[in-house]
């Protein structure tokens, strides 16, 4: 009906929704960190495996269900997600070869330009689509979607907007990209660690203390993805420094041209009823 829904701002939230969203995100976070927090389960370790996996995937699924199922995005947001998502897909391909993939860059700049909600969606949709395209679908997908979604959401919470100086904006984004490079790798490695390395000396020990598991994980991480993640962290920071300003400039312009309202509360219909003031 109205022009209001048309310009549905991406970040409008009611208070209840915010509470539920935060709670779901915490559950999601727990799903990643479960090896440190979960008390020892009884019975044969290996039989629990599928159940644990199903619970983890399920909880992340619920989070995704909530964020992706909110509706009311509108054509503009969907089109932007499509184009920026295409960039994620295109950038993920060479990543398989080189180890470092620039796919975080569209997510970082997209999140910073258009807000945390958009950033989360971009990360999730981008990983889903690139999984489809490069043929990377598997039980790890919900984890990837949420993890990259968080990277995008975080970028949206950094300094942004016309009143921020470029130095601050790029500096913050570059630092964030650096940290996110490690955090993503660390966390993605973590959820699968008990399934992959169990039984080895650096595997998850269900009867161990949190401290012991942390030490074991540190060793596992160093042996597996640390080098990868270092490349990613430095790569992200470098690309943000080199490309951040022109890319963010392009996205800001696009938002203006599309007349995209993202942070405002639902506005009055865009068609103003007053005739143009004389002499304008």
């Amino acid at each position, binding site marked *: *009906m*109205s*022009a209001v829904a*048309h310009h549905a701002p991406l970040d409008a939230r009611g208070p209840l929704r915010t509470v539920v969203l935060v709670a779901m995100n915490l559950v999601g976070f727990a799903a990643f960190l479960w090896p440190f927090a979960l008390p020892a389960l009884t019975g044969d370790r290996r039989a629990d495996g599928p159940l644990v996996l199903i619970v983890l995937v399920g909880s992340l699924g619920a989070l995704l269900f909530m964020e992706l199922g909110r509706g009311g995005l509108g054509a503009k947001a969907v089109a932007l997600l499509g184009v920026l998502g295409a960039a994620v897909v295109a950038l993920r391909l060479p990543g398989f070869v080189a180890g470092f993939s620039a796919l975080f860059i569209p997510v970082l700049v997209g999140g910073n330009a258009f807000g945390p909600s958009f950033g989360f969606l971009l990360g999730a949709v981008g990983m889903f689509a690139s999984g489809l395209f490069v043929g990377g679908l598997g039980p790890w997908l919900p984890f990837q979607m949420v993890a990259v979604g968080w990277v995008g959401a975080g970028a949206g919470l950094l300094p942004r907007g016309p009143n921020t100086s470029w130095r601050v904006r790029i500096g913050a984004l570059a630092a964030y990209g650096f940290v996110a490079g490690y955090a993503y790798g660390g966390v993605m490695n973590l959820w699968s660690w008990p399934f992959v390395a169990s039984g080895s000396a650096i595997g998850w020990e269900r009867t161990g203390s949190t401290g012991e598991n942390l030490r074991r994980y540190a060793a596992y991480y160093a042996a597996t993805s640390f080098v990868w993640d270092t490349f990613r962290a430095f790569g992200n920071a470098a690309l943000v420094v080199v490309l951040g300003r*022109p890319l963010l*400039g392009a996205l800001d*312009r696009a938002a*203006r041209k*599309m*007349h995209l309202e993202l942070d405002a509360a639902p506005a009055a219909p*865009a*068609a*103003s009823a*007053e*005739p*143009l003031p004389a002499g*304008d």
Partner: protein
Amino acid sequence: MTDALRYAGVTYSYPDAPSPALVEVDATIEHGAFALAIGPTGAGKSTLLRAANGLVPHFSGGAFAGHVVADGRDTREHAPRDLADVVAFVPQDAAASFVVDRVEDELAYGMENLGVDPRHMRRRVEEVLDLLDIAHLRDRSVRRISGGERQRVAIAAALAAGPRILVLDEPTSQLDPQGAEHVMAALQRLVHDHGITVLLAEHRLERVAGWVDVALGVDAGRVATGTPAEVIRTLAAGPPVARLGRLVGWEPVPLTVRDARARARAHGGAPGGDGDGHSRDSGDVLLAARGISARYGDTEVLHAVDLEIHQGEVLAVMGRNGAGKTTLLRVLAGVHDPARGAVATATGTPPRAGFDVALCPQEPERVLYGDTVEGEVRATLRARGATDAASPWLAALGIVPLASRHPRDVSAGQRLLVATAAVAATGAPVVLLDEPTRGLDPDTKDRLVRFLRAHAADGGAAVIATHDVELAAAAATRVVMLAGGEVIADGDPATVLGDSHVFAPQMTRVFGPGWLTPEQVAEAWA
């Protein structure tokens, strides 16, 4: 019966715009009419079209006064999606407007949004496939069909939901003559056989001017309606025959070759003497291609091509789509390795891209990345370590007033000029332009032709790959025709274009070989 489209007192400004895009527009288009919006670029044609289905103001924001009523619905009260079953909108870039991969699914998308019953959808999809003559494309990916086919799919997708009003923004600007022909024929059928109301914005009026019922002349936001002849005359727009009519004072101006022939007979036949094909003596060879055979993927696209490019030449390379024009340019520029044969500069070495030869691509946007127009030129100068100022290059293309504008904020034709300036700033003696016809309004065309002539006169050479006959007629000193990868004609424009049926400019069709431009004819009659 109500009118199809009615604009009443429409005044509109884009957000943050210094001046209004539309001023007090009053216009009425009846059901079943074929309406044409004409005017210089930036005059407001696109805005006018987008007001028909509510994109202006709902999508674009801004300040809107007046009313637009489409088939009884006021766009103030209806968002574009509520008008989807009343007005079909087809943007210029059809490829970018597609949502899914298969043609058939694309046609169904609009109806899915409207909640149409699936059985009904099936029927409508079949109908619209036949209507636009694209039934053989139903299973194809939208990415792998030709430009003309894409445009027709976009039209079909917009019409599938049943609207009776079709609004198109420059549908043929990115198409070659074949594609344009198919699209225009389809539009004609829709209007004449099926009673669809069509509102079209176009620059290339040669084909369509004869079919149009009502023209809307758009100039600086103001719209004047009338017959095509009236509007074309007032706006100084139109096909070459119309330009000739204005120059010579014919009233009303002719719109088609046929009209012009009749007038010419009344005027006393062809002007005396043969036209001067404005060919020149060849200067030194700047670039020589010998025995070039080139492949694109698995197909051989060029076969045993010999071509010499001389100082002082403006060479038009013409031919159908797929004839090998772009590949030839890329071989000449040194970025495509020929399977056989070689290209050499005057010194005998292969050409260095960006140094001996520079190329302005088909989509000028591909090179634009600066913040300002001047910045684009400076980027090229910086890359080659030159310390010259940017302004001479801007002046050569007539775009000095645009120096501090953002390159993507200017019109499509101006973007081409900016890209050409950026490419020319390499200082390369041989400048190539690949299909510089997108969004080419008459003003841009003039500036481009002036630049090409000046560049050639200064000791350089220019090569344009084009299927725009009128551009070739206006600019070229030599024409080469390619077909099936081979050179089938090479000579001065009067002869080569005069010999061809398909590639003859309008003046040749009216007056015979040797007559290329209206200015030429008018001068001979003076």
